[in-house]
């Protein structure tokens, strides 16, 4: 058996201009359980996607069992070489039964009686790891709740049996209750020291401490520290995850000042007093409220609920609001339209005469924004997709800021945007705030919280903490979200 199950050498990965991984080198021995922690965008999932063959690295290389991986490495190849992964986003087909899902991924279950064999195999694994699971192999996955689906996903990876070499668990317990999560961790502790190498990613640090031998901390696409699990503590890990930038934030804390907005009118307020299901958001005129916490913990859902303001059962909202998406292709752009048409869709009443849109007015509105925020385009009549991502995002900002809406919802609006554009966006938000416009700003970047007056931290779909902007350091947010 090879000494090293996995060895990565200087792996880097770029998405467009922004580097997601920089020079990552780590090793894993058979039988070892490695914890991997870090905040959003630290690069953990990117690294795992590379190891499981979902996409190739931009630079560097890695080997499995001493064998260097080639260009043809994909998910199928990874599986056949013993690499199996459990991601937060499930790979199961909901309309298939548990046994059928097993067959889709494990071609060895074929021929007569496969259904029984696959069913027996998965039941045996489930019985071993999750006694009392209550899952029948001929049950369709859609009839299982989210936690049980996750359990099946985990068992599916273990079904590779002797073919399992490297097991990657990316947030495997996010949908599991305490008891089931405990069962998984106990099982990992049981198989540790065998032939399987395990990489365990979680934001629940106590779990990572409980089942790993060694913990690697990532930050901004790099490895920022490595500790042996028995010497590590929560505080030490949180410090490694955020220390550098937290101090940087402190240094630049000059623009942090507490503003008294209590006399301003409320734009968003809860209809009922707070319930035990978490905090409720309020938003005053001229206020910037940040939504923080780990990605996908309910921030975008809240923004969508708020945006659908006429039908919102929980909040009293003074609409209309506008929405700046982070995923431009999916939620923002009209791909067949020019920059001008993309920019003016919210403000037709302002650019038309006698109900007919005046093209020169439309052009002058767009031209004004081009000059004030520097949309770099050969011509404003060009297709929106001819712009770089940052400039497309500027158009989306211009679209919303040109409207008269009092409150603007932002769904991680600086995602994948270059530094220069970010500075322009921050400046815009400050200016508009001072003019009395309000923002609800979901961001995955800790640095951006310093622009907020108040910050709500999300965990598992609800808001668990409210932090004044002046105290919204990375460390404070991390403490609430982990």
């Amino acid at each position: 058996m090879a000494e090293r199950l996995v060895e990565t050498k200087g792996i880097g990965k770029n998405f467009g201009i922004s580097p997601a991984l920089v020079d990552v080198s780590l090793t894993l021995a058979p039988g070892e359980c490695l914890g991997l922690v870090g905040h959003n965008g630290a690069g953990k999932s990117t690294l795992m996607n590379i190891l499981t063959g979902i996409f190739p690295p931009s630079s560097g290389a890695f080997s499995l069992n001493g064998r260097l991986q080639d260009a043809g490495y994909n998910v199928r190849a990874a599986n056949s070489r013993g690499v199996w992964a459990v991601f937060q986003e499930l790979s199961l087909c909901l309309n298939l039964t548990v046994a059928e899902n097993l067959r889709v991924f494990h071609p060895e279950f074929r021929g007569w009686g496969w259904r029984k064999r696959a069913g027996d195999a998965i039941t045996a694994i489930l019985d071993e790891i999750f006694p009392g699971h209550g899952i029948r192999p001929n049950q369709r996955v859609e009839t299982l709740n989210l936690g049980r689906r996750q359990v099946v996903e985990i068992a599916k990876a273990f079904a590779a049996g002797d073919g399992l070499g490297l097991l990657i668990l990316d947030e495997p317990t996010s949908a599991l209750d305490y008891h089931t999560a405990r069962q998984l961790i106990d099982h990992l502790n049981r198989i540790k020291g065998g032939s399987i190498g395990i990489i365990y990613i979680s934001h629940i640090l106590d779990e990572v401490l409980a089942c790993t031998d060694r913990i690697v901390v990532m930050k901004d696409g790099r490895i920022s520290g490595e500790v042996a699990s028995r010497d590590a503590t929560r505080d030490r890990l949180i410090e490694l995850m955020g220390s550098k930038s937290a101090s940087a934030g402190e240094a630049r804390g000059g623009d942090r000042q507490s503003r008294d907005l209590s006399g301003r009118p409320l734009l968003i307020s809860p209809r009922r007093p707070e319930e035990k299901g978490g905090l409720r958001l309020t938003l005053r005129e001229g206020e910037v409220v940040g939504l923080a916490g780990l990605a996908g913990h309910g921030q975008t859902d809240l923004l969508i609920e708020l945006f659908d303001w006429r039908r919102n059962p929980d909040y009293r909202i003074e609409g209309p609001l506008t929405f700046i998406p982070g995923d431009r292709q999916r939620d923002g752009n009209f791909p067949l339209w020019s920059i001008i048409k993309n920019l003016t869709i919210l403000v037709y009443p302002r650019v038309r005469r006698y109900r007919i849109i005046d093209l020169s007015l439309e052009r002058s509105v767009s031209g004004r924004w081009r000059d004030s925020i520097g949309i770099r385009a050969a011509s404003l009549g060009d297709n929106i997709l001819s712009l770089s991502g940052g400039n497309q995002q500027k158009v989306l900002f211009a679209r919303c800021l040109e409207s008269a809406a009092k409150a603007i919802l932002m769904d991680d609006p600086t995602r994948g945007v270059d530094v220069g554009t970010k500075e322009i966006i921050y400046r815009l938000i400050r200016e508009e705030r001072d003019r009395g416009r309000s923002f609800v700003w979901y961001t995955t970047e800790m640095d951006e919280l310093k622009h907020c007056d108040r910050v709500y931290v999300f965990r598992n779909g609800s808001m668990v903490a409210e932090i004044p902007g002046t105290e919204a350091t990375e460390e404070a947010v991390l403490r609430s979200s982990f």
Partner: protein
Amino acid sequence: MVRPLDSRKEGLARYTETLVPAISLLVVLLPIVYKQPNLISPDRYYATLTMTLAFGIPIVLASLGQMLAMSIGEIDFAMENLVSLVTCVMGAVMFKDPLLGTAFLIGILAVYMLIGAFIHLKKLPSIIITIGMSFIWTGLAITIQPTPGGSMPAAVNAAMRLRPPWIPYPIVLAVLLALIGHFLMFKTNFGILARGVGDNVKSIQQAGHSAIRVRIMVFGLVGLFGILSGVALGGLTTSADPLLAKNYTLLSVAAVVLGGGTFAGGKVSAVGAVFGALAMHLVVHLLVVLKISTDWQAGVKGFIILLALYIGGFFKRAGKIRYI
């Protein structure tokens, strides 16, 4: 924007899925039995049932084809045109020149497989391609058999008129087809992959399976079931007609949905589709039994199809839809 069902509704859905088509069939059957007591008379049941159900078989076949298309989230909009065309091929070509007729049918199969490849490569919904195809099929049908007529090959006529002991032939066929369909969708690797593609193409591809192959095979089988439906219909009517399978597209879609299928998400049931198809056939038959004027029949049919779609989809309604 669709949210998952809450768990209470989910449990309800599981029961209704199997019960809805069966109950619908029963609800339709009862008034027919009341009007035609021969259906349950020990002496006459055989002939009456055979007569009543025979024309349900081509609908069952078309519905199984439609079920295959819907298992991967597509719809074959040219079903009625295909079935009609096949009766014309049988009546006008196969009868005189079996070799040419067979080549014709193989050509249709090949076109269907091309459609599968086409929708995969162009990422086009099949509904748009198949509406184009529907005119090509009808055009071909009119060209080879402009008016109703022609004669079916004797073997086809004979095949549709077998008389098994005790159990009427259409029932034997329906049960057989339900079993074949169920086996295909739920016991074979192909069926699992097809339904998987209907729900989560990405996973299926990442597991190393070829989605284009699945789509080609599915559409090949859609064509095959369409052809079988045409052969069966031709054998029953013993004549060819470019408009013979009128409304089959809607009836087959309604049958699949009534039988527990959905327009997206790869959820289908072969047994349900067979029940659904028989229910749809009997509803149409009921209109005749109740002596509903032919003037009303198209409208009532349309209404019933909408009702079937509504009932079939009722227990699967999702939570909050913000835009559609």
